[in-house]
């Protein structure tokens, strides 16, 4: 096996020519390149950093970021951040304690010092001017965003960890292995759909089943496109199709370790190559019911009183905010509602008056964070409801809450009445 090839400039960084912070970053990138037998490093156009919430970083992580910044490390490519544990400007209003807020703000300031753009969102692909383009090489560490970039956009990224994505940003390159190579982008599974997919929640339920079946493989969906409206011309709005794919990608990345899927006639590589993307030894499976997924994800069927309804995992798109605002227009909520999104998308929605409509009903449009990474138990929340497939299992696991999982309409109905009611259409 040939050794990792480094250019003289890369060798110099590894030897410490740009200081210890950059040297450490190059050590990480090179170590991964050697472990995964990369032929060389590839320049990246963008990095997305995970490990931002103090809940995940702990004091050691915060110290580490400060130390790296103090060693003079700074990013060489546009770099954005995952959600934090609170809305940075409104943590007091959210009821976050200063003991959590202080180290959280220190971590964000270390990132800023390194030149990172503090977007605090899992959806960098919804940001005009930041969203990647087909063929871009990226170092993204948010698994749901990785799936979108590879699948919906046709960019190239591995599932980076928080420190490795930051290291890649600091040296402006990542090791060329895994999903950076065409040969690894072929489908290992063909997944046919034999049940209706009516809602975003249905795509979340599908993601659970496919994630568990496929593991870290690459699924090819020959007929899923039948359940998708056309993708919007501007993907950064989300759109009805984008919102379904956003939840699908988040779920298959969380319940499996999927980084890439193909949908015949929809995703760019499948549009170009069709069934040539399917490996000869691909496994074939058919999904004929979502009921087993709903049985697990709608984990507490005895729970009818809801403390918090949460929409926006991954962070809500402009289209989702439009749907929520339309439903809540003129209503008064009986329970707490968080629509979690980015500051960027919230600002776009505010221009359309959507934020006012949601707030007039008593809902909160929360930026920078979500109900997985925020310390929700400290906020007195024990019973949650969501339409987001990834949130359905992550919030009980990370925050020990009870969970109801269903369609957006059902969730908003629960926010309005304070009661979870049986769906008008039971899962098939």
């Amino acid at each position, binding site marked *: 096996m040939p050794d990792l090839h480094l250019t003289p400039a890369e060798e110099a960084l590894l030897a410490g020519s740009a200081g210890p912070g950059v040297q450490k970053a190059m050590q990480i990138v090179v170590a991964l390149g050697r472990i995964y037998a990369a032929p060389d490093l590839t320049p990246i156009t963008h990095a997305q950093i995970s490990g931002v919430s103090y809940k995940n970083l702990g004091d*050691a992580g915060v110290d580490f970021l400060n130390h790296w910044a103090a060693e003079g490390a700074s990013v060489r490519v546009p770099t954005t951040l995952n959600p934090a544990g609170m809305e940075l400007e409104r943590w007091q209003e959210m009821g976050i304690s200063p003991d959590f807020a202080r180290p959280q703000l220190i971590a964000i300031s270390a990132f800023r010092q390194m030149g990172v753009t503090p977007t605090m969102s899992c959806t960098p692909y919804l940001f005009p001017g930041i969203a990647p383009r087909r063929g871009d090489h990226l170092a993204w560490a948010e698994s749901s965003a990785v799936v979108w970039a590879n699948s919906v956009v046709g960019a190239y990224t591995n599932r*980076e*960890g928080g420190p490795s994505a930051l290291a890649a940003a600091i040296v402006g390159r990542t090791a060329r292995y895994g999903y950076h190579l065409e040969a690894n982008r072929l489908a290992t599974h063909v997944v046919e759909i034999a049940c209706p997919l009516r809602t975003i929640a249905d795509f979340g339920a599908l993601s659970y089943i496919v994630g568990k079946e496929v593991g870290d493989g690459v699924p090819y969906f020959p007929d899923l496109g039948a359940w998708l409206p056309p993708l919007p011309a501007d993907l950064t709005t989300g759109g009805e199709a984008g919102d379904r794919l956003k939840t699908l990608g988040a779920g298959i990345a969380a319940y499996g370790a999927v980084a890439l899927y193909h949908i015949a006639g929809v995703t760019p590589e499948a549009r170009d190559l069709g069934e040539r993307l399917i490996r000869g030894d691909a496994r074939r499976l058919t999904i004929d019911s979502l009921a087993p997924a709903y049985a697990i994800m709608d984990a507490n069927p005895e729970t009818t009183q809801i403390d918090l309804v949460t929409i926006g995992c991954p962070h809500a798109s402009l289209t989702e905010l439009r749907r929520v605002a339309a439903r809540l227009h003129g209503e008064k909520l009986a329970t707490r509602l968080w629509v979690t999104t980015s500051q960027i998308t919230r600002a776009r929605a505010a221009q359309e008056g959507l934020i006012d409509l949601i707030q007039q009903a008593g809902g909160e449009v929360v930026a920078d964070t979500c109900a997985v990474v925020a310390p929700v138990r400290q906020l007195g929340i024990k019973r949650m409801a969501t339409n987001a497939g990834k949130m359905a299992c992550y919030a009980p696991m990370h925050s020990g809450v009870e969970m109801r999982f269903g369609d957006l309409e059902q969730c908003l109905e629960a926010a309005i009445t304070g009661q979870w009611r049986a769906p008008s259409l039971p899962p098939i």
Partner: protein
Amino acid sequence: MLSDPAGAAPPPARPPLRLQGRVIHAGQAEGVALVSAEAIGFLGGVHPETGVILDRNHPLHGQSIAGVILVFPHGKGSTVGSYTILRLQKAGAAPLAMINAASEAITAVGAIIAGIPMVDQIDITQIQTGDFVRIHNQTIEIYK
């Protein structure tokens, strides 16, 4: 990183078994080996302040990885596990060095950010718990 934890046997006169691996993070260390035949998940699987293995299904459950030469096939689980290795090091509960059969991103990045010497591509079946092991970059000496 040279250290002589309590209970470490001095190397006997017999010549050591010498193996060559691949450096993940360069450095020197010596101490007593703790060998796991199974992969280790750091996030949730190891207590970040004591080094005790918390995973009930792990063969080393209840044992501490603090102050040993930790030998295992590779890491597993969440990539946040790299930060767990860093937390161990800050708490003084990290292994002195790590030896893997075939490393992966979580352990390798953890070793680098925590500054723990690490080597992989080693036939770890050659090492038993209790062996005295000396690491110098890619070279490993095993004293039975």
